[in-house]
C-alpha cells in the first residue's frame, strides 16, 4: 500500500510540471506584449519596462519559466493587478469559504444521494424507486440560480429565518450548501442506483443469500461495498468541480469564495490571479484523483495488489 502511494505521488510530479508550463505560457499566448497590456496603453516606455521587470518577463523564455516556477514554489504569484495585494493573500482569503461550502455540500449530498440510490435500487419498480428518481431528475434539472433565488425569497424575505447571503455563521451555510449539493445528490442517487442494481445481479450476492445472510446485510455489506467503487469515482469528480468554486451559487448568495474571485479577475484581466487559480485548481484535482484511487484500493482489493 505504501509503495503504491509513493509511486502515485512520484507520478504527480511530471503532471504538475506540465501544468505549470501551460499556466506560464498562458501570459505569452496573449496577443501583443503582456507588459504593455498590463501597464496600459498610455504608460510610458519606462513604466512598461518596470512592469515587465516586475512580471518577470525579461530574458530568454526558460529563464522566465524558472523565475515563475521558483516563485510559485514559494507561494509567490506576484501582485494582483486589481487590488495591488499579493495574489497569495487574495486567494488565501477566498480559499477557505469555498472549501467549507464544498465540504458541507458534499457531505449531505453524498449521504442523501447514497440513501436514495440504494432505496430506489432495492425497491426497484415500486413507488419508492419512482419517487426517488423523480427527486433525482428534478435535482439535476433545477438551475441553481433559480433554486437559490426561490430559497432566498422563501426563507429570508418571507420567513426571515436565514440571512440572504454573506459568510460568517452556521446560518449562512444552510441555503448555499443546499443549493450547491442538490445537483450532486441527484447525480449520486442515480449513479448509486444503477451501480447497485448491477451488483445485485452478481453471483456472489446470491451466494450471500444462500449462506443465510439477512437481507439488510446482503444490501449494506455484500452489495453496497461493491457498488461503492464507481460511486467513489463520481464523488471525487464532483468534489473536484465544486472546489473550483461555484460561480453561480457564490454570486447568488454573495459568498466570498474562489468562484467569484475567478469571475472578477477574468473581467479585470487580472492575469497573476488567474494563473494562480488555474494552478491551484489543477493541483486540487490531481490530489482528489489520487485520494479517489487510494479509496478505490481500499474498496477493491483487486486494485490493491496490482
Amino acid at each position, binding site marked *: 500500500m505504501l509503495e503504491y502511494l509513493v509511486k502515485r505521488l512520484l507520478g504527480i510530479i511530471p503532471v504538475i510540471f506540465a501544468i505549470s508550463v501551460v499556466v506560464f505560457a498562458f501570459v505569452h499566448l496573449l496577443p501583443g506584449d503582456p507588459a504593455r497590456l498590463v501597464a496600459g496603453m498610455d504608460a510610458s516606455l519606462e513604466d512598461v519596462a518596470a512592469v515587465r521587470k516586475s512580471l518577470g518577463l525579461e530574458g530568454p523564455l526558460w529563464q522566465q519559466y524558472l523565475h515563475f516556477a521558483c516563485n510559485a514554489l514559494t507561494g509567490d504569484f506576484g501582485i494582483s493587478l486589481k487590488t495591488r495585494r499579493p495574489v497569495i493573500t487574495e486567494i488565501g482569503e477566498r480559499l477557505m469559504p469555498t472549501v467549507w461550502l464544498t465540504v458541507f455540500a458534499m457531505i449531505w449530498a453524498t449521504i442523501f444521494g447514497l440513501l436514495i440510490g440504494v432505496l430506489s435500487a432495492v425497491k426497484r419498480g415500486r413507488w419508492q424507486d419512482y419517487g426517488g428518481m423523480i427527486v433525482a431528475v428534478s435535482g439535476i434539472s433545477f438551475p441553481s440560480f433559480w433554486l437559490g433565488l426561490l430559497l432566498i425569497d422563501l426563507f429570508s424575505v418571507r420567513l426571515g429565518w436565514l440571512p440572504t447571503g454573506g459568510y460568517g455563521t452556521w446560518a449562512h451555510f444552510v441555503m448555499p450548501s443546499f443549493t450547491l449539493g442538490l445537483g450532486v445528490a441527484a447525480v449520486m442517487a442515480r449513479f448509486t442506483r444503477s451501480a447497485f442494481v448491477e451488483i445485485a445481479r452478481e453471483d456472489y450476492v446470491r451466494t*450471500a443469500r*444462500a*449462506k443465510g*445472510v439477512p437481507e439488510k446485510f446482503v444490501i449494506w455489506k455484500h452489495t453496497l*461495498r461493491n457498488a461503492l467503487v464507481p460511486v467513489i469515482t463520481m464523488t471525487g469528480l464532483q468534489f473536484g468541480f465544486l472546489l473550483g468554486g461555484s460561480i453561480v451559487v457564490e454570486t447568488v448568495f454573495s459568498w466570498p469564495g474562489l468562484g467569484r474571485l475567478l469571475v472578477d479577475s477574468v473581467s479585470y484581466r487580472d492575469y497573476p490571479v488567474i494563473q494562480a487559480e488555474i494552478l491551484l485548481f489543477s493541483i486540487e484535482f490531481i490530489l482528489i484523483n489520487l485520494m479517489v484511487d487510494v479509496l478505490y484500493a481500499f474498496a477493491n482489493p483487486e486494485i490493491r495488489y496490482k
Partner: protein
Amino acid sequence: MTAAPVPVAAPQSPLVRVDGLNVEFATEGGVFRAVQDLSFHIDPGETLAVVGESGSGKSVTSLALMRLIEFGGGRIAGGKLEFRGRDGVVRDLASADAQTMNRVRGNEIAMIFQEPMTSLNPVFTIGDQIAEAVRLHQGASRAEARAEALAMLEKVRIPGAKGLLDRHPHQLSGGMRQRVMIAMALACRPKLLVADEPTTALDVTIQAQILRLIRILQDEMGMAVLFITHDMGVVAEVADRVLVMNKGRKVEEGVAEEIFARPQHAYTRALLAAVPRLGALAGEPLPRRFPLVEIKEGGGGAFTEAPPQDTVTGSAPVLEVKNLVTRFDVRRGIFGRLSGRVHAVEQVSFSVKAGETLALVGESGCGKSTTGRTIMQLQAADSGQILFHGRDLLAMGAQERRSMRQKIQYVFQDPFASLDPRLTVGFSIAEPLTTHNLATGKAVEERVAELLRDVGLSPDHARRYPHEFSGGQRQRICIARALASEPEVLIADEAVAALDVSIQAQIVNLLMELQEKRRLSYIFISHDMAVVERVSHRVAVMYLGQIVEIGPRQAVFDHPAHPYTRRLMAAVPIADPARRDRERPLLEGEIPSAIRAPNDPPEVRALVEVGEGHFVARYSIGDFR
C-alpha cells in the same frame, strides 16, 4: 449419520419431500412456467442427481428449494417443499417466512454454484466469507469463527490453508475458489448440500478432484446432496438416484444403475445416446458420427449407427505448422518492466491432410486456443512456420496473406457472442462473400440460401436476427459463415463446448457430414476427450504450450504414452455407474502456470516415436519429470 439427532418421525422418512412444485416467471410474453408439477424426495445421506438440458428447470428447482428463486424474478406458484430440520420438525419451506429461511439457508441447507469465479465476493477475504456463515448461524465469536474457517479450509484439502484466510478471491484459481465455496457451504454442517453444476466451469482433472471431494465430505458428514448437472458422466459418477427433467417436468426417476442400464423414457434414451462416452470407439481406427435417436411421441425410438468417417485423402498436408512459438510479455510497475513471459505456444509442430481432423486437446491455459488463433493470424507468432500447401503464411505479403486467409476459417466457442446481434443472419453469412469478392448481386443471395441449407437451416432464416435462434442454430449459422469463403481448413475452437449434449451431438455430426461432402480439414480444439474420440483422425495433446503426445486417435486413446494424457483420460467421468470407481486415487495439485521469467524458455526436445506416427515427449515438462 451417527451424530444426527434422533428424528421424531420414522427413521426412514425423507429429508426433503417436494410435492407438486410449480415455479413461474412473469415475462413480457406472459407467464413462463419453468417447473410444472414436480414431485421428488431426498433421503438422508443420499445423492439425488437432477439432470436435464438447458431450460429443463433443474436449476430453477434447486433455487426454489432454497427460496432464492424470488430474488431472480420467479415465484413459487404451488406445491410443497417439506424439509425435515435438525430438530426433527418438518417445515414447508414454500410458505416459510424470511426469518425461517435465513435460519435454514447456509445452516441446514447449503448451496454451491456453477461459477466459482464470480460466486465469491471480491471485496472480502476468504476467511471472512467462510466465517460469516459460522457467526450467523452458530453465534460464534470472531476468533472462533476464524478457527472454524481454517478447519474447513483444511477439510476441503487446500494446501497452505492458513495463508489463504486473509487472501481475496481473485488471487485463487477456479478450482481453489470452488473448494472455498464448498468450505463455506459446509461450515455449518448442513443436512443437505445443493450443488448446481459445481464442476461445469472447471477443467476435467480439477472436476475429478472436486467430485471426489464432495463425495468424501458427504460420507464424513452424513449429508444428502442434491446434484444439478447436464453431464451424464458426472451423474454416473456421483448419483445414488437420478431424476431426469425436460421442459420443466419430470421425465423419469430412479436408481442410477437402473436409469443408465434400462432407461424407460425415450427422452432419457436419446439423452444417453447423445452422451459422448470415452472408449466408445476403442479398437476402431476411424472416427464415427454419434448415433442419433429419433424421439417419437409416446415413447420408442430408432437408433441409426453411422458408418466410419474415412475421408482422409492425399499424402501431402494441406496445413503444416513447424516449430510455432507464441509468447506474451507480462509487464509490471510504472515503467512496464518485463517481469515474465507466458509461453502460450512453445515449438509446436503438426500437419493436417485434406479431409482429416486433428484434435488439439488439453486443459485451460495449455495453449490450444492460442495455437488456433496464431494459425488464423489473430495473434502474431514469435517464430516458426505456418505452411498452407507448402507456402509460409508468415513470410507472405499482406495482400497475399489476406487472400490465403479465406482458405482457413474459424468457428468460436460462444455462438451467442460471435454473431452481431444487429445484423441479419443472411448479412453475416454474406459478408465473407462480399469482402473477398467471391460473389455479387443475386449470386450472393443464392449462395447464402445454399449455405443455410447445407447446415440444416432454411433459406428464409436469412432475414432473421441472431436472437431468434437457439444456441445450436446459432452455431450452425457460424459454421455457414465460416464455409462461405470455401475454406479448406476449419479451426473449430471448443465449437460444441457451450451446447447441450443432444445439440452437441448434432453439431458434431454436421461437422463430420460437411467434412465428408467437402473434404474439409479440421483442427478441432477441445477439452472434451470423449468428443475428441468421436471426431478426430489424429490427436495432439497439449500441456504448458507444448505438444506432449501426438498420433493417430486410436493409438493415443488405446495406448496413451505420456503420463499427462493418462491423467487426462483418467479424469474423464464415465457415463456408466456400473463402472465407477469411487476408490480411485484423488488427483492432487493444480495445473502449473505457463508464465516463466524472461529469457528462461522451457526445454523443448524432439518427440520420440513409440508407434507408427505416434510421438511422445520423453523429457521433463511441468509436473512430469
